[in-house]
């Protein structure tokens, strides 16, 4: 008997850790890894919420949302890594502090 609130709390922890990682890290690759952590936390919350109503005989929306989130995460990872490669070509590094050509 796992309370559903515990699943949500764990998902919230992982989401917060990923978001903190986005803010404190300067390597663009690690920033994308933080985004992946946030996607996974959302998936975990979806599964917990889908498990919450067992009286439904059809598949719940929570379970069916997870593959869509995975597909969006895959698309995001591909586009983001192409951006990393483009940034490496343009600046010679992946540090976000190198991106200052639009700084006034």
């Amino acid at each position, binding site marked *: *008997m*796992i*309370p*559903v*609130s515990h*699943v*949500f*709390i*764990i*998902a*919230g922890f*992982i*989401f*917060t*850790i*990923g*978001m*903190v990682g*986005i*803010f*404190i*890290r300067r*390597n663009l*690759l*690690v920033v994308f*890894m*933080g985004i*992946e*952590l946030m996607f*996974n936390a959302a*998936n*975990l919350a979806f*599964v*917990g919420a*889908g*498990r*919450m109503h*067992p009286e*439904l005989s*059809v*598949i719940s929306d929570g*379970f*069916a949302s997870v*593959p869509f989130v*995975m*597909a*969006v*995460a*895959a*698309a995001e990872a*591909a586009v983001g*890594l192409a951006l*990393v*490669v*483009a940034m*490496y*070509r343009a*600046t010679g*590094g*992946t540090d976000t502090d190198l991106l200052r050509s639009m700084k006034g």
Partner: protein
Amino acid sequence: MNILFFYPISALVIFLSCGVVYAANPVHCAILLVAVMIGIAGLFLCLGCELLAMLQILVYAGAIMVLFLFIVMTVDTRKEEKFANGVKLAQTWGVFLSVALGLLFLFISLQFSRHLPDSVKWLGDAKSMGAAFLNNYALPFEAITMVLLAAMVGVVVMSREPMSQGPMSQGPTSQGPKTASGGNQA
């Protein structure tokens, strides 16, 4: 049975995701993130979705993280010294706001008092998921294929050698003579 594994795996996942954020070497971050993905697949199994656990391992730990590791090892990354340029105001506010958001999540999560059923009634098996994707979710399924196709075309366009002669990299890899027709496709 599943409660026996749920809390240790979740503690491990939280610990490892702290390691993803903390580790200085991006290769270590990627390896730790693979471990986090596998742990989350274990949590999915504890929650009773075996298909999603398998998809998590296949898609995340198998495909996305291999892509990440490939780029990490292609791109020359150095270890970053933490806060080498000082702590910016945006970083301070970002961490503050994320912790505030986490506390908000905690507060909202505690509103749910329902318990997950212990009886193993597999709702997330491949049969019911496949039936759902062919009946109720057929239109979103087709839409997500379009998203993936658009992302694929976008990546191909973005990773081409740029046509214009912009200010190219002063990085260490741009010493080679450039052919006029854009020869070195990576």
